[in-house]
């Protein structure tokens, strides 16, 4: 095993799956080999601790790939630590071709990772992760769906102004708001169209009588 070590990983948290890329022998940059830690998810706290309680095992899993990383300083530090501790690692049998069940489980893990990132508010990271998946995985309906809802918003300047008559409607609100406290009210050009305690019901009622066009809905407190 040669000296060059890279860590190809999605670093979002201190506990994450780690892929160790090692330059194998004389083939230089042509043939990076990845090593998948068996103890997954790889615990970076464990790797960074001065005296690891257990020597992690690893196995060859194929040709390495590069993935975007976020925290370069962490990456360098962890990589160095991995390099320092690589020698005592125990190699086991190379990984065999994954079964269909394992592939499905792996895909599910990836979806859960996206959900975890989204729920923790790390949307940019989720987008980057998703981008990586789109380039490395075959088309998947779940990935497509996540891609749609996580895509950056597209803004288009429209050719015209459709107006909102907020000025006229505000004048009506100033005069009558107290009379409709707790209700949804529909207005158009400062004219009262209707009210209801339920927004959807009011919408449907106005649609039924053909008054929905141009209506502005407000809820009054």
């Amino acid at each position, binding site marked *: 095993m040669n000296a060059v070590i890279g860590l190809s990983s999605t670093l979002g948290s201190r506990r994450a799956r780690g892929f160790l890329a090692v330059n194998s022998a004389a083939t230089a940059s042509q043939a990076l080999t990845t090593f998948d830690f068996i103890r997954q998810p790889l615990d970076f706290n464990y790797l960074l601790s001065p005296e690891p309680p257990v020597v992690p095992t690893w196995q060859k899993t194929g040709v390495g790939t590069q993935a975007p990383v976020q925290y370069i300083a962490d990456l360098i530090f962890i990589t160095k630590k991995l390099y320092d501790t690589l020698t005592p690692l125990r190699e086991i049998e190379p990984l065999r071709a994954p079964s269909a069940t394992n592939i499905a489980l792996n895909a599910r893990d990836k*979806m859960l990772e996206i*959900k975890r990132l*989204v*729920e923790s*508010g790390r*949307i940019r990271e989720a987008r980057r992760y998703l981008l990586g998946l789109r380039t490395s995985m075959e088309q998947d309906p*779940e990935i497509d*769906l*996540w891609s*749609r*809802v*996580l*895509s*950056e*918003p*597209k*803004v*288009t*300047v*429209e*050719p*015209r*102004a*459709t*107006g*909102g*008559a*907020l*000025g006229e409607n*505000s004048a009506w609100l100033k005069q009558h*708001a107290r009379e409709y406290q*707790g209700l949804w009210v*529909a207005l158009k050009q400062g004219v009262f169209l209707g009210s209801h305690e*339920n*927004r*959807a019901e009011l*919408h*449907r009622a*106005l649609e039924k009588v053909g008054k*929905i*066009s*141009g*209506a*502005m*809905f*407000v*809820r*009054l*407190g």
Partner: protein
Amino acid sequence: MPQLFLQNAQAYVAWSSGVARYLTDYAFGNNRILPVAILCRLGNGNFTDTALFDTAAPWSVLREDMAQTLEEELGEPGELISVKTHMGPIKGYLRTLDIHLLADLGGTDIKVESTVLVTGDWSGPTVLGFHGFLEKLRFALDPGVAEGEEIIYFGPAGA
């Protein structure tokens, strides 16, 4: 129409494409005062709603009862997710929806192909939040001097 400009080297470039009034301290239901509420059109229908303009909200939020009237405009729901809010966690589905900001004082409307969280856990107003909506908008709030003079300038980011 009133416009805002960016100084770019020696030139001034107008960046706002539309201007609209906004409401301050708008009372929505019981005990909810919206500091900044703006008029928007959800979907492509010909009606408008007042929405809380909130840069601190991670996502735009749409109540489930309102989503029912927009079902044909909303994209396919994603996975059920939980989002933290100042009123506790709410569960819902991220769905795509076109949202228009209406230029009622000059310029033209803008359409944002956005993503909203549709939820039955929320009884508050429609929220226009950061991800999936505000993150690609350039805007400026001018509170004016007297009540009723509040206006918002908006345009696409980077224009």
